[in-house]
């Protein structure tokens, strides 16, 4: 597992090079520049960290502390998609929000989320799938598949 700032800086530089190399694939009708670059960044980071097994504790805490929290003065407004995603996330059920945050933002595996939250693994997967599809639908990026019983 990579754990020092040198690794982080290397990752950022690699992302930057990836951005340049993939710039010609950008299609502004599909996403903004920042979202496009974020996609590239995520791919690179997934490659680098997907096998890590970092865990968080599964302590039983006060309701309000069930999820990681972010400083209120650090709201990010990078792109229209990000704003739409934030709005769409608020429309989800709390369990779906929690699973998406833990998986997409915290990088926890479904198994880790299951252990940390006490949800059955199948339930975690269902929340992840349905939550992601619902966010996509609210963002207007795709139709909710008929079978997705959200």
């Amino acid at each position, binding site marked *: 597992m990579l754990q020092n700032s040198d690794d*982080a800086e290397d990752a950022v530089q690699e992302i930057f090079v990836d951005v340049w190399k993939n710039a*010609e694939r950008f299609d502004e009708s599909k996403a903004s520049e920042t979202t496009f670059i974020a996609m590239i960044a995520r791919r690179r980071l997934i490659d680098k960290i997907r096998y890590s097994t970092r865990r968080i504790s599964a302590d039983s805490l*006060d309701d309000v502390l069930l999820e990681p929290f972010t400083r209120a003065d650090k709201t990010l407004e990078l792109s229209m998609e990000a704003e739409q995603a934030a709005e769409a996330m608020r429309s989800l059920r709390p369990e779906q929000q929690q699973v998406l945050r833990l998986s997409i933002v915290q990088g926890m595996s479904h198994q880790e989320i299951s252990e940390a939250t006490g949800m059955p693994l199948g339930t975690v997967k269902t929340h992840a799938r349905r939550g992601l599809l619902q966010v996509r639908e609210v963002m207007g990026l795709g139709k909710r598949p008929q079978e997705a019983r959200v």
Partner: protein
Amino acid sequence: MTDEQKDLLYDLLTKKTVYGLEPGEQAELDRFDPEVVEAEFRSLEITTAAISMASLEIEPLPDHLTSKILASAPSALTPAATDAREPWPPNAKIFTTDDVFDKKPRSSLFGWLGWVAAAIAVAALGFNLYTARFNKPQPEQANVPQVETPRTLTPAEQRAEMMRSSADVIQASWAPGNVKELKGLTGDIVWSDDTQSGYMRFRGLPVNDAKATCYQLWIFDQTQDKATPIDGGAFDVSSDGELIIPINAKLKAVKPEMFAITIERHGGVVVSKREKIAALAKVETHST
């Protein structure tokens, strides 16, 4: 396609966008209509990237890293390093180092300058995601707000003065969090909406290794989403006995409902994983 097959398809697509797939899983995904898979994957990937951006905060890149990135750009932009299949923007030639860094104003260049800014901004996001993932200290977060000791009044005297002079002071007692070693922690927190000031009082809060960790106060306010409490400031404890520490709220707090002290890495964090909660204080009633 049956419901089971569709669930499988979207399970695989979800996993691919969030984590990537193992070879066996990819083979399973390859059994579905490639056009459907491609289209669905792209939109889900955009969705996932947008959620990432919506949930993370941008931290400025360290200056030295910005310099390194800019310095590496020329080599990354050589024709050999670029894939020239379909240039973007449409009808544009493949850019060379000279094109991008030419000082002469050109209409086509301005778009790229925007790209440079966007790339650096999102590279910052990547940096933040990566460091957040591995919980590493970030140079730009190293400026721990210091507990300021007034020259004329001690914190204890300031607290007493605030209690005397502010009519709207709320008070809440600390209760243990999830750190076993801190079960004996006692004390309280007082806060005044009018003066936007307050003080934490502790007995039994251990001295921390200031080079590695810090304590950080979070204010859960009625005006803020519970997922984004107000940062009440990071602080270190360097001595035993009763401590009184001023609150250093980063935003205006109106009728706080709860306060939490977390143990974080040196410098404090913008996203707390609430792994170590030293203490909690719930406000039972408001005087106003």
